[in-house]
């Protein structure tokens, strides 16, 4: 099963490689990984999407907690939560296709953030599934470049992860 893990960790050089090294050394899956500093500059927050049986997810969580740089690990699947991913996508936009693209972007609540003679660049956020759905509406030949951020997640309601 797919799990979204949220980590708070010391904002130290090498902390990221400890996490990624752990996943490769122990043959755990890693679907996506995002990391950036938080409001506290000494702490980074990582969102990590992985998958595995309950036993494997338990082991992943424990091994992450064991890393000396990791302050806290939360399995967001245990909470009501929201996940979002940012996608930047560059499309070949011929004159005759432009209206259709614009319409689809509006339906998916994206934004066209750059326009050139032959291209549109679109910004879109949502769950990974939504972004996949948008891509599926496009003609493959139209897609010039896709950049996805990987999933970021946060719990709903009053629950807040703090160090």
């Amino acid at each position: 099963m797919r799990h979204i893990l949220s980590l708070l960790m010391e904002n130290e050089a090498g902390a990221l490689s400890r996490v990624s090294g752990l996943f490769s050394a122990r043959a755990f899956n890693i679907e996506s990984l995002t990391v950036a500093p938080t409001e506290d500059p000494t702490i980074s927050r990582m969102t990590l999407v992985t998958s595995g049986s309950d036993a494997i997810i338990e082991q992943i969580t424990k091994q992450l907690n064991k890393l000396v740089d990791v302050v806290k690990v939360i399995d967001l699947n245990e909470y009501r939560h929201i996940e979002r991913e940012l996608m930047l996508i560059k499309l070949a936009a011929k004159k005759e296709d432009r209206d259709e693209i614009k319409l689809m972007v509006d339906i998916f609540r994206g934004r066209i953030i750059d326009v050139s003679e032959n291209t549109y660049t679109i910004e879109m956020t949502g769950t990974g599934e939504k972004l996949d759905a948008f891509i599926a509406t496009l003609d493959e030949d139209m897609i010039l470049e896709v950049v996805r951020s990987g999933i970021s997640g946060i719990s709903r309601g009053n629950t807040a992860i703090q160090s």
Partner: protein
Amino acid sequence: MAKKRELLRGAEIFCRALKDEGVKHLFGYPGGAVLHIYDELYKQDAVEHILVRHEQGATHAADGYARATGKPGVVLVTSGPGATNAVTGIATAYMDSIPLVVFTGQVPTQVIGNDAFQEVDAIGITRPCVKHNFLVKNVKDLAITIKKAFYIATTGRPGPVVVDIPKDITADTCEYDYPDTITLRSYRPVAKGNLWQMKKAAQLILSAKKPMIYTGGGVILSAASGELTEFTRLLGYPITNTLMGLGAFPATDKQFIGMLGMHGTYEANMGMHYCDVLIAIGARFDDRVTGDLEKFCPYAKIVQIDVDPASIAKNVPVDIPIVGDVKNVLTDLIDLLKNSNDKPDAKALKAWWQQVHDWAALDCLQFDRSSQVIKPQYVIEKLWELTQGDAYVTSDVGQHQMWAAQFYKFDKPRRWINSGGLGTMGFGLPAAMGVKLAFPDETVVCITGEASLVMCIQELSTCLQYETPIKIISLNNRYMGMVRQWQEFFYSGRYSNSYMEALPDFVKMAESYGHVGLRIEETSAVEGALKEALALEERTVLVDFVTDQTENVYPMIAAGKGQHEMHLSTDRELA
């Protein structure tokens, strides 16, 4: 009153921090990146530097020192090859959760990443085999980083910590302040067990009809042998130890039924297979213990006590996990058991012991005592008798290691020192040297084979220089014995590259290093040779026992088999 602050160079800070940390021995080898530090070491006498002959020897010696004393082993090596040579020893300590603090020199910060002379990414290379590592980027961080390193290495589940120090840091100056204590928000090992879990565990333990206590190196690391002994005697249950756990409970006690696992005793493995309650303490269900996981302990409810949550239920599902320091948990469990209205089921226990004794009656460790050709088991049995089971015994890896574990009955913890997890050949000799430095008045023996011994043979020089008179018992069968055994069993006797051709003359070798060498070829001479070696208290002695080439380690569970599927010997199979 504010502490008096002095302005010190990084190299001075290094030496002062080690002194303030109470370090007595530093195992190391100099080189360009650590020359400032070596210059400071020259000027002080609080820390004795032990010059090894290869950095692998430094880490193994520090490791042996740590295993014997319970204190962290400390190592200093230079950058590049100094660091890479140390890696095998670091990984060895990591697999067995041994506290080491390893300082690696690094090229100056300005040239890091430039492929400078003797530059290697020590942090990157060691990351997968350390508990934690640090690169010191400012001299102001040096003292606090050293404090953190010792704290992390020695607390919770211990392990090696590497501190990489660029050369310019050792020349820069700052005020020296070494904190007495430290806390880290991201690292807080659990000390006490959860009371609710322990109550449930006590209940299950007392309800057992066929109980088994299975303990590992965690008991020794936690200094909980006394508690384990009390706990085991209180219950009257059979106990088995892992390879790493030998000595935590007295091997000569009637409740001890031998080591378990691939070359464990028949009674221990059968007891594991048929038990209904398994009490696992500081043991990690290693594959050499469990055999086929599908067939492991099919009838047992399992209680597991471990300081490392990640160790619990890693390989085998557990019914009652207890996270906490073994010593604390056992102390609390003993209280709970003593205050419980329930008592162990005496009738069921009697029947269970009868079953265990029936298994033991097969005498799975028998060997030919009438043989003229020296049987390796005989050498170890004699050694055990002559040292009254009280020596510090290190070993290398292979058949001799298994025979030592089977035939030297350890009654005390920290006496048996071997590379269990990583299985590092070459460990025994430098480790023995480290032990002897820690305990100059104790008998320290390295049980080895001719293949393992030569892997760190250069440390014989160190033994001479620092007057560490150890006894090297080499069981020389002219083969990599364990490889040969597997080739005999599983590769139809095709002995591919397991024969040790062109062996040196070990007697002359010992002599050339300034030690005593003996070569023994007959069983009748074994006892005399051991006595002679032990009597030479001031000398390192290498005894080259020419042993039976065809002897195999039995009993054995082949890899991938269940614990109840043992081979007793070539000519004794079970029905």
